[in-house]
């Protein structure tokens, strides 16, 4: 009886163990399946994430390429701008140098115009020479006038001589010829004196007109030089 009981108990125990084992296997299988499912889910998720990361990496690489390209472009632009800036600096330096040159030229033009204005003194000197020439002409006028008076006197004397020769009759015939010659010479002298007087008047007008032209021309040049000086000064003031 005990044996049977023990056998039954053992059988029961084995059955229970078997059942427990089966249940354990089932539970393990379910757990495994669940773990596998979760793992697959995670793997899927990770795969998707990985794909996204790869896409992002690709995008990033593209952006990096673009940025590198932009940087290269910027480098080129910078180089060009540097070159232009260098050229501008050179041009500015040239302009500054030109400005200094212009300033120097303007200063020299103003100084030269100022110096040349003293030419007015030269023109005035020439004009004074005219006064001197005209004084000499006046002296020649006076001498010619005196000569003309003498010639008129000679004409009267020769006429008187002719009258006296006529009174003397045959004895005075030779003297009449001489008196006639003297009168003829006096007439020629009178004509010469008149012609000389006309020449002096022509000379007066020509001398006066010429020297007044020189004097007025000198004033014109002086005024023009003053204008040049003013313009040069204004140009100089603007450059400063």
């Amino acid at each position, binding site marked *: 009886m005990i044996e049977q009981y023990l056998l039954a108990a053992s059988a029961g125990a084995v059955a229970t163990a078997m059942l427990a084992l089966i249940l354990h296997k089932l539970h393990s299988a379910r757990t495994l399946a669940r773990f596998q499912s979760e793992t697959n889910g995670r793997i899927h998720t990770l795969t998707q994430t990985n794909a996204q990361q790869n896409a992002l990496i690709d995008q990033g690489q593209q952006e990096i390429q673009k940025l590198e390209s932009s940087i290269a472009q910027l480098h080129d632009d910078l180089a060009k701008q540097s070159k232009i800036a260098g050229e501008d600096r050179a041009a500015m330096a040239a302009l500054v140098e030109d400005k200094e040159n212009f300033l120097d030229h303007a200063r020299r033009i103003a100084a030269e115009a100022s110096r040349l204005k003293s030419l007015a003194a030269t023109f005035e000197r020439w004009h004074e020479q005219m006064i001197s020439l005209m004084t000499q002409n006046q002296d020649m006028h006076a001498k010619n006038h005196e000569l003309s008076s003498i010639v008129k006197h000679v004409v009267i004397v020769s006429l008187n001589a002719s009258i006296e020769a006529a009174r003397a009759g045959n004895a005075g015939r030779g003297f009449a010829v001489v008196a006639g010659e003297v009168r003829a010479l006096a007439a020629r002298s009178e004509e010469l004196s008149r012609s000389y007087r006309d020449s002096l008047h022509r000379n007066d*007008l020509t001398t*006066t*007109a010429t020297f*007044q032209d020189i004097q*007025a021309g*000198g004033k014109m*040049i002086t005024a023009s030089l003053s204008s040049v000086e003013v313009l040069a000064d204004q140009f100089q003031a603007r450059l400063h």
Partner: protein
Amino acid sequence: MISSNAQASIEGILLKAARSRLPRHPDDACEIVPLAQAHDDARPEANVIILTISSILFRLLLVFHFDDDVHTRDYFAKETGDVSLQDMLLEICNLCCGAVNQDLLPYFRDLGMSTPYVLSARCLPYLEGLKPDLLSSYAITINGSVQLAATVCVCAHAPIDFVADITAVEETSGELELF
């Protein structure tokens, strides 16, 4: 070489200057009549006052004829104290020439004016010797008794053509250039 417009303008400027500068008082009558020639054969012993305006294109001679008679002396030199008639006339002619110079300046930038000089009227026939392109003379009578004359003689070195505006208001006081 001098266009008819320029000739009329120069003559107009001279007459305007003569009317404004020669009479001693603005209300004095001033009658101006053209003359056939510059010199008056009847008055060879008279003196004239000559002035020159020079430019790059031309030179312009102004000749003023005055009689040294009682009318002229009374009119110009009666109230001038110690100043002689000739000095007074030199000053008046200078003012008159200055007025011409002033009116020419708008048309010719570069002008210069000489100082006046006295010559014998016997010199005037030789103005032709300067080969002028314009030679005009005028008899001027102030207050019916003072007889004067003015001659303008222009020698041009290039064609001259301009139309002067001589309608501008005349200034009663001119600049006095010392000489």
